[in-house]
């Protein structure tokens, strides 16, 4: 029987064809003694199919809290008794956040809102914010505003939004245990609207929400089917007051297996370290991830929680001789 990493070396590294669901499951089931080998192969795949540059992004919560949805992992849901209280940024504050993000060398700035989908007020604020940022800051603007209508997708594209994020979060078979107020199919449909308008698609997940390994492999396959430009990998940070508050953190080896597996499933995507990596992996794990398939990071803080000092991440990249991706100019 051919070893899965041997198969992956030929199929993924040499031919650029991502692993299928059953193959991803084999990687997720590798013993601890083979995690380093899987990460090393994932790193080779990243270098071959993506290059050595690391994309750096900052994110900010434009509208915090009071979300009507019941995503069980989220402290911003208005349905759970969490410590998060509603807050809203104004446009000058948004522009300043973008400016500070750009000053770190980041080329992406994502505006996020805790909503099911944007209402007229939020769209007006996003419109003003995106226009102000594009006029003042040299940075690509991305948005994550929930489920879109076709008209809203049109408007975001016309504003020059570079990339739109809408995570699948979980495998289709697991989704109903994570969210009940909207469907996996509704999330999938928004991704198609984004792609049809030529915006880049950012679609990721949260690992560690009680899924089985089979469901984790299913998730990788479903993400690969979306074929996103970017896949943010979050690891559950169990928040007080949420239904998932008592779930244990993902074991570091499992997180690293997932990183390697997702890279081997999607050799060409921007695979981004997102929320929860500090708790799950720590400093050593961050290094292992960046040398194990990851080629993008969120710099600084997240939406409601705090991240690593940007100087630490940028120092790590410098130490590893990984250049920070620069803005490309489309003439």
């Amino acid at each position, binding site marked *: 029987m051919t070893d899965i990493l041997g198969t992956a070396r030929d199929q993924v590294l040499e031919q650029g064809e991502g692993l299928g669901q059953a193959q991803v499951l084999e990687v997720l089931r590798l013993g601890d003694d083979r995690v380093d080998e899987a990460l090393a192969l994932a790193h080779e795949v990243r270098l071959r199919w993506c290059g050595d540059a690391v994309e750096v992004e900052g994110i900010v919560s434009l509208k915090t809290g009071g979300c009507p949805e019941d995503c069980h992992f989220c402290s911003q849901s208005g349905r759970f008794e969490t410590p998060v209280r509603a807050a809203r940024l104004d446009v000058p504050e948004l522009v300043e956040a973008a400016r500070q993000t750009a000053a770190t060398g980041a080329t992406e700035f994502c505006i996020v809102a805790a909503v099911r989908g944007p209402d007229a007020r939020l769209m007006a604020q996003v419109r003003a914010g995106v226009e102000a940022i594009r006029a003042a800051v040299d940075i690509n603007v991305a948005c994550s505003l929930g489920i879109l209508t076709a008209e809203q997708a049109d408007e975001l594209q016309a504003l020059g939004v570079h990339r739109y994020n809408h995570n699948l979060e979980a495998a289709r078979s697991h989704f109903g245990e994570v969210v009940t107020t909207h469907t996996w199919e509704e999330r999938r449909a928004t991704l198609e609207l984004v792609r049809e308008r030529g915006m880049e698609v950012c679609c990721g997940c949260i690992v560690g929400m009680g899924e089985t390994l089979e469901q984790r492999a299913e998730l990788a396959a479903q993400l690969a089917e979306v074929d996103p430009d970017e896949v943010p990998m979050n690891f559950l940070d169990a928040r007080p007051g949420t239904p998932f508050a008592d779930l244990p953190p993902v074991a570091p080896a499992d997180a690293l297996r997932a990183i390697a597996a997702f890279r081997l499933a999607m050799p060409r995507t921007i695979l981004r370290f997102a929320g929860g990596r500090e708790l799950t992996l720590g400093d050593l794990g961050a290094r292992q991830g960046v040398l194990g398939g990851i080629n993008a990071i969120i710099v600084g803080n*997240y939406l*409601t929680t705090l991240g690593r000092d940007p100087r630490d991440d940028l120092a790590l990249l410098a130490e590893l001789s990984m250049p920070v991706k620069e803005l490309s100019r489309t003439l």
Partner: protein
Amino acid sequence: MTVVAGHCDGCGRSAAEGDHAACRARRAATDPPRFCAACGRKLVVQVLPLGWTARCVRCGPLV
């Protein structure tokens, strides 16, 4: 705003009662203050890429 005693800024409950080890751990690792240490109200917290601000609707902004 300097607070001597009062409330745990992680959960809002009395700082003198109960075990706040988990609150302290979260504050050290990932969380800005969530509750006003003076009055226990939930803070309006805005996390930014390179910092955060927090304000109590009764006691004012944290500095």
